[in-house]
Each structure stands twice: as structure tokens, then as C-alpha cells.
């Protein structure tokens, strides 16, 4: 019988193998923890990104979620640290893991337990010897490969993909289009920048200056939501002012075209003005002037724009030019007037072009805001308005009739008290119909059935204190059910009344059965009669 010393080489071999396996397990666990931490970081980044959006629309809820997420993160980290500290569970667990992974069928576990115990026998010695031989042949690196678990790795990769997607995606619009600092998306900001550049290029006017100032505020990161809202309204007002000025110019051109239509040689200019093409009109006028100069031999004089340039000025200048063209001695004055008229027309053409460009840019900005608004529900009128082209009535589009109806309406729109410009404007009477109607008040809005019920059941709604005590504890009608019951009773009364009124026999429904019984059961009726 071989001697069995607790400190035999077999024991040392088993201990060595278990220590190696334990180290390997710790490494694996650390790797798993690292993957978990990485996953948590990814999750935290996604949550942070999501919270930016949530916090934008609901700051209080956002703060609560942030607090909960932080607490949850701390708890998870604590658990992780505890799990890491609790670690592999020593040699016993290492033996179990080795048995499991190496399919050793509890050989190392049994050997380790035999070595820990005091019982010794030939059989135990043989078992430990065999287990030691097995342990010596173990390769911990093959047995416990350093590997992040597949599901964890998959989840991590998926999380990374989501993170990249969330990071690159533009933030969702806030609940109200003009709710906070994240008022403009990067695309909108880009459009605002373009609009600003356009406004700078405009001829200096009060409206252009207002628009520029408003756009500067809109672009400013330091501006508060209220300031941005105000700036947006200002920009809108400035653009509308420019629209009005442009429309006024077109109206003047229209009138001018009618005036010039009767003048000889001015038909082409009149047509161009009627089309609203000031540039073409100016070109034609310049050609006319050139021809006149060639025929008369007087050189074309360049003229400085007169003070108070405007549509009235150009009318007067052209009138003067046409009047003077009849008299030869006044031909120099006529040329000068024509030249001035050409310059004015060119200026008007520039203004109209700039106004059209500003209008288009502004429509793009407004369009993106409308798209954000779509997520909250798109009204039928808004849909129709968005799908029709052009979407906004404007002189810049060239499709707006110049009779003044639309122009007048646009000018009459006042800023309402809604959260968005669209809502506010439409409440004041915009034809777009975007805003919800205010609820009607008073009894006139109450349904007929409800009125009837109220009249029929007056006083039944208020339960007495005694009724409160007798109220059944197991079932009670809800207010809705009570209302439905009441409504049915009202309908029933109506039907009953209708039936009564429509009965041709002259016997009401409630008495019909009595009459029927009277004739069908004469004996019982006789008894009752006798009684």
C-alpha cells in the first residue's frame, strides 16, 4: 500500500494546476468586466445623447432620468466591483471550472476535496495520483481561453453601431418648434447663414437692417429661447416688410405699364413692366435712349439717382421723358429723365431679385420648421398647403395675383399668443387653418341629449350623505357609465314618447298589456272585478 503524504508531489501538481487555472479565470473575469464596463460606457453615451433630446423637450423629466441613470450606474459599478472582488472563489471553483471545461467528470474537484479532508486510503491515494497526472497535462490557456463572451461582444458591437447612428443623426426636434436653445438644426442654421449673407447683400433699407439684426440674434448661441423666438418674429416681420415693398414696386410697375402702353415706342417697355420684368424694361428703355441719342446726335448723359428714389419718382421721370420727347429743344432733359428712369428700373429689378431670393431662403427655413411641426400632427389644410407649389403666397413667386387680396391678408396677420408663429398667426385669421379652434363655451355647445338629460334628471346627480353610506363597496358606476345610462334613459323616454304619439289605436303602450289581459283572461279579471 503506497504511503500517502498530504504534501506529496501529486498535491503540489494539483495545487499548481489549480492556481494557474484560477489566474486564468481571474483574467477572463477581468476581460468580461472590461467588456461590461465598455458596454456601460456605450450605454451611458447613448443615454447622454438621448437625454440631450429628452432634456430639451422636458427638462424636469430629463433631470429625473439623469439622476436615475447616475444612481443606476453607481449601483451597477458597485456590483461589478463586488463581483470582481468576490472573484473566482478559490481553488474549489477553479477545480470545478477545470472539470467542466476539460470534461474531467469531477476528477479535480474530487481530488481537491480528498486532499482537503483527513480521510486517507489506498483508493483516495490512487484517485489523487490519477488526478495529479491529469492536472499536470492540463493547458490552462486552452482550457480557459481569454475571450469576451459572444453575447456580450455582440451586444457591445450593436451598442457601438447604435451609438454611432445616434451620434451622427441630427437631434430630434423639440416638442415646440421654438422651445429652447436647440431651436435650429444644423441645416436650418446653414440656411439662416445663407439668408444672412443675402440680407447683407441687399440694398440698405430699414427692413434689411432689421432682418440682419434678427438673423444675427438667431445665430447667436448666447441668445435665450425667448430672444430667439422674438428674433424669429422680427425676421419674419422684416421679410414680410420686404415682401410688401416688393409687391408695392410690382404694383407701381403694373400701373406704369398701363400708363406707357398708350405711348408710341414704349409698347415693349410696357409689356416688360406688365410682366414685372423690370430688368428687361430697363434694358429696352436704355436701347430706346440709345436710338434717340443716335438719331438726335446728343450723347447719352449719365445721371445720378435722384433723391427720394421710388416708384413715384420713376413714374414722374418717365412721364417727363415722354412729354419732353415731343419737343426737340427739350430732348436733353428727356434723355436725362430716361437715363434716370433706366437707373431706377435697374435698382427696382435688383430689389425684386433680392427680395425673391430672400423669400425663397425664408421659405426653406419655414419649410423645415413646418416639417418639425408635422410630427405633432399635420392638418389637412397644412398638408394641402405644403404639397401645393409654391407653398407661400408671395410676390416673389410671381404667381400671386396683384389685386391686393393676399397682400392685404399677409399684412393683416397679427402675431398671436401661440407657441409657434404658425399657430399664433393662424389664430389671428390666417387662411391656413393650422391652429385648433378654441372650445366653444356656453350651453349652446352642449349636445341636445345632454341638455335633455339635465332637464329630466335634475337633482339626481348629487348623492345625499345617506346614499354615500349605502354606496356598494364592490361595484360602482363610473361617471362615464352613469352618463351613458342617463343618456339611454333619455333616448328611451324619447322613443316611448314617440311610440305613444304614433300609436294609432289610441291606447298607450303602458296600458296595452292591461287591456290585452282584460280581454284574453276574462275569468281572472272577473275575480278581480268581484274583489
Amino acid at each position, binding site marked *: 500500500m503506497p504511503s500517502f503524504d498530504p504534501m506529496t508531489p501529486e498535491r503540489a501538481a494539483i495545487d499548481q494546476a489549480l492556481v494557474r487555472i484560477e489566474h486564468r479565470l481571474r483574467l477572463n473575469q477581468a476581460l468580461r468586466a472590461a467588456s461590461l464596463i465598455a458596454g456601460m460606457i456605450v450605454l451611458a453615451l447613448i443615454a447622454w445623447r438621448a437625454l440631450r433630446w429628452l432634456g430639451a423637450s422636458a427638462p424636469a423629466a430629463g433631470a429625473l432620468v439623469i439622476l436615475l441613470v447616475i444612481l443606476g450606474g453607481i449601483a451597477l459599478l458597485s456590483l461589478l466591483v463586488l463581483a470582481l472582488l468576490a472573484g473566482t472563489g478559490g481553488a474549489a471553483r477553479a477545480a470545478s471550472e477545470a472539470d467542466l471545461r476539460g470534461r474531467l*467528470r469531477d476528477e479535480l474537484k474530487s481530488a481537491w476535496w480528498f486532499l482537503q479532508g483527513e480521510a486517507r486510503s*489506498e483508493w483516495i491515494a490512487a484517485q489523487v495520483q490519477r488526478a495529479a497526472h491529469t492536472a499536470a497535462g492540463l493547458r490552462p490557456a486552452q482550457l480557459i481561453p481569454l475571450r469576451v463572451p459572444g453575447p456580450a461582444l455582440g451586444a457591445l458591437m450593436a451598442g457601438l453601431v447604435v451609438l454611432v447612428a445616434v451620434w451622427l443623426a441630427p437631434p430630434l426636434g423639440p416638442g415646440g418648434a421654438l422651445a429652447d436653445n436647440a431651436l435650429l438644426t444644423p441645416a436650418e442654421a446653414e440656411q439662416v447663414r445663407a439668408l444672412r449673407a443675402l440680407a447683407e447683400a441687399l440694398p440698405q433699407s430699414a427692413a434689411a437692417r432689421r432682418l440682419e439684426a434678427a438673423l444675427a440674434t438667431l445665430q447667436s448661441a448666447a441668445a435665450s429661447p425667448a430672444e430667439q423666438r422674438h428674433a424669429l418674429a422680427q425676421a419674419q416681420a422684416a421679410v414680410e416688410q420686404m415682401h410688401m415693398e416688393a409687391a408695392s414696386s410690382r404694383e407701381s410697375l403694373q400701373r406704369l405699364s398701363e400708363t406707357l402702353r398708350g405711348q408710341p415706342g414704349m409698347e415693349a417697355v410696357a409689356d416688360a413692366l406688365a410682366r414685372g420684368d423690370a430688368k428687361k424694361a430697363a434694358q429696352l428703355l436704355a436701347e430706346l435712349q440709345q436710338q434717340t441719342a443716335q438719331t438726335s446726335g446728343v450723347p447719352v448723359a449719365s445721371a445720378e439717382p435722384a433723391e427720394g428714389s421710388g416708384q413715384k419718382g420713376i413714374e414722374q421721370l418717365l412721364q417727363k421723358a415722354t412729354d419732353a420727347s415731343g419737343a426737340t429743344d427739350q430732348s436733353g432733359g428727356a434723355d436725362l429723365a430716361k437715363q434716370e428712369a433706366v437707373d431706377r428700373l435697374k435698382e427696382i429689378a435688383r430689389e425684386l431679385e433680392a427680395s425673391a431670393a430672400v423669400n425663397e431662403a425664408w421659405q426653406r427655413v419655414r419649410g423645415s420648421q413646418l416639417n418639425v411641426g408635422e410630427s405633432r400632427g399635420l392638418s389637412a389644410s397644412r398638408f394641402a398647403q405644403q404639397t401645393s407649389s409654391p407653398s407661400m403666397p408671395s410676390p416673389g413667386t410671381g404667381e400671386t395675383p396683384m389685386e391686393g387680396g393676399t397682400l392685404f391678408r399677409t399684412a393683416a396677420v397679427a402675431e398671436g399668443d401661440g407657441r409657434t408663429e404658425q399657430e399664433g398667426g393662424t389664430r389671428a385669421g390666417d387662411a391656413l387653418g393650422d391652429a385648433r379652434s378654441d372650445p366653444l363655451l356656453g350651453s349652446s355647445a352642449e349636445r341636445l341629449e345632454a341638455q335633455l338629460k339635465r332637464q329630466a334628471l335634475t337633482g339626481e346627480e348629487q348623492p345625499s350623505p345617506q346614499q354615500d353610506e349605502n354606496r356598494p363597496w364592490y361595484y360602482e358606476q363610473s361617471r362615464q357609465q352613469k352618463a351613458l345610462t342617463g343618456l339611454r334613459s333619455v333616448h328611451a323616454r324619447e322613443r316611448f314618447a314617440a311610440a305613444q304619439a304614433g300609436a294609432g289605436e289610441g291606447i298607450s303602450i303602458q296600458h296595452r298589456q292591461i287591456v290585452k289581459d282584460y280581454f284574453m283572461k276574462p275569468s281572472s279579471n272577473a275575480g278581480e272585478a268581484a274583489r
Partner: protein
Amino acid sequence: MTTTVTPPGSAVEGQIERFRDNFRVVREQVSRVIVGNDDNIVGIMTCLLARGHVLLEGIPGIGKTKLVQTLADVLHLKFSRIQFTPDLMPGDILGNTVVRENEAGRKSLEFQRGPIFANLVLADEINRATPKTQSALLEGMQENSVSAGGTTHPLEQPFFVLATMNPLEMEGTYPLPEAQLDRFFFKLRLGFPTAEGLHEIVDRTTRQQEPHVERVLHQGEVLEMRETARALPVARPIQQYAIDLTLATHPENERATQLTKRFVRFGSSPRGTQALILGGKVNALLNDRLHVACEDIRTVALNALRHRLLLNFDAEAERVDSDAILNDILERVPEPR
């Protein structure tokens, strides 16, 4: 630090080698006659080597009796067969005291040994005898001795009872009480052979010469194998696993599974745990291991515990058998780490 480990090779290893060889030879010999049922042959041998008795359950004609007879032939042990009938008396099994007259004309009472005095006893259709007769056999199974006429007669070792039971014909039978069922180490179920198996059976049994077996194992070798099986050490975690399995069959125990709580009236007795460990030891030796693994416990769990669960009415109504409950327990009870 590197450690030199001596390769295993000792008397123990030789003992295990002999055990496995003997077992293999028995299996081979029995398989000459018995088609299929390899698991049941191993189960019967496990019972024999673990000093237990086995209850065979199966429909008529699938070779229960033939299996036992073949085993007796192979093991070179004294074999007796008792056909249990309703009129069988305890004396017919244990033996009777008879009056015997010697040459001098002196009369004396002498105990005439019954068929129980054999190494291998086949109790065929044990559930056909009355409980009184059944209990006479079961007393011998438990005590390994027979008391008659104020004298205790020890039974020769190995004493191994193989009882068969027909699960179909229940009319005129006396089902074994739970306490008596518990005395059986294993309850084995013999299934119907496959088509291939039937071909083989027909081929073997319809020729002029039926296959015959050789007696390959003697009484002493069987006893040595029994000692070898008992000597195998069991680590405490493995023992804990066997105990956990046993406790999981008790509906009131915290380890009980949902199925146990729902369908079991009484769980396994401690004899069940003993059967798990001893059966596990034999299984470990058969797999050339010097230690019992949880896998060995699981291998024998169904045979060791299925007849020790007393199911309730719900189980009967929903046709849930003990095997389903035990499989559920085996799935749910974790191995000790």
C-alpha cells in the same frame, strides 16, 4: 516550479481492471442470448454488485425471465425461480419445518429450506401473490436471513432477488406497497424491442440450436467485485449532489421543484440516496474512474428513484409519471461548484 508526477499504477488500478473485465465478460455472455436491453443488463449487474435487489417491470414476453435465467447461467450461482400466484404461501418461499424420522426411528423437526435459499432468486410476477407472501420474501431481502421455527437461517451471499412485475394485468394482483417497493435497489423498465431487435430475436430463437452461454463468473469473483464497488471513495460535493436530488423529491423541502410540489405526495427515502451513491460507484468503475462523478449519479438516478416517489391524485389524473418528475429534477438541481 514543475512537479514530477508518478503515472498511476497500483493494486487499486489492477482491482479496477479486473472489475471491468469481469463486468465486460458477463455483458458479452448475456448479450449472446438477450437482444438489446444493454442498459438493463448493466442495471441488473449494478444491483448485484451494490448488494441490492432489482424489480423488473415490463409487458409479458419481452424476456424478463429469460434475462434473469441467462444471468444466473453466466454467473455460476445457485438459481431458483418462484412463480408467484395468489395461493402461494410464505412457507412455499421460505421453507417449512417438517418431521423427519432417522434410522433409529427417532423423529425430529427439521427445516426444509425453500427456494429463497439460493444466490439468484427470480420472483416472477411478484404482484400476483398476497401481501403476506410478498412480505416473506421482502424480509429476506432486507435482512439477508430467514427466521423459521425460532431459528434464523442466514442466506448465502451473494443473495440477489430479481422480481418481475407486469404493469398491464392489474386484475387479481396485489400491488407492492411503497414500503416494500423501497427495498428494491433499482426498478428497471424493459421496453419493447425495435424492429431490428425483433429480427435478431427471431433469428436466435427459431434455429435448431439456441445460443448458449458459459459460466464465466464464480461466486468469489462476484463477492470481490462487490467489495471493489464499495471501496470507491466519494467526495463530499458529489454526495451533496445525491442528497440534493433526493431532497428535491420531497414536496415540502425547499429544494423541491414545481413539478415535485404539484405531483408528489412523498419523496424518496434515504435508501434512495444510498442507491444513488452505490449505483454511482459501480457506474464510475465501469467508466474506469476512481471517483464518483455527478454524471454517475445522474446515470442511475431514474432507476434508483422512480419507484420511491409516491405520486398524488393530480399526477394520476394528468398522467404524469415519476420519470418525468425525476427528469425535471435532474435538469433543475445544479451540480455543486
